[in-house]
């Protein structure tokens, strides 16, 4: 099956900072090192951003991570400029809900 004429893969994100939202609602930020057709990801120097309504965003260091594609909802390209103006300690929000299939 031929792919669309536009680039559909994640190749352009390799060695870039990405933000991953997982099916259980977690947000993991790190450097994309590799991926495959099933959206399995290898992320280096990663950390989790834990959202809460009481304190600001807490960052937990994870290091080198492999995330199975099954468990991935969104892969976002982090914009450096917007990222630098962001004050994570001031952001208060509920954690994202988990993905609910057929609910």
């Amino acid at each position: 099956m031929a792919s669309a004429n536009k680039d559909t893969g994640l190749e352009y994100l390799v060695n870039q900072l990405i933000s991953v939202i997982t099916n259980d609602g977690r947000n993991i930020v790190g450097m994309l090192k590799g991926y495959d057709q099933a959206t399995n990801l290898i992320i280096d120097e990663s950390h989790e951003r834990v959202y809460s309504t009481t304190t600001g965003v807490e960052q937990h260091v994870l290091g080198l991570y492999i995330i199975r594609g099954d468990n991935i909802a969104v892969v976002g390209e982090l914009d450096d400029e917007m990222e630098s103006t962001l004050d994570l300690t001031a952001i208060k929000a509920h954690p994202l809900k988990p993905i609910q299939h057929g609910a």
Partner: protein
Amino acid sequence: MLFFSYFKELVGKEVTVELKNDLAITGVLHSVDQYLNIKLENIKVVDEIKYPHMMSVKNCFIRGSVVRYVQLPVDGVDVEILHDATRREARGN
């Protein structure tokens, strides 16, 4: 195959993708693949107050398996063509 072709026709249009975690993201459709994974550009989360989690993300890749709805632009739907294509697919070619 039909929906893959259909979504390819929508590339360049603005769509809103609602995920199975209730997050809704609006953006310009950049591309779609055979799994109906979707790439959006210049995204905006619909309820940014409630969901600030993607504030520093401009472009994103959404896994097809987590998409609940895709809200289309009004001019993105030609019912006649879809009718024909659906019938053709039902006939098996």
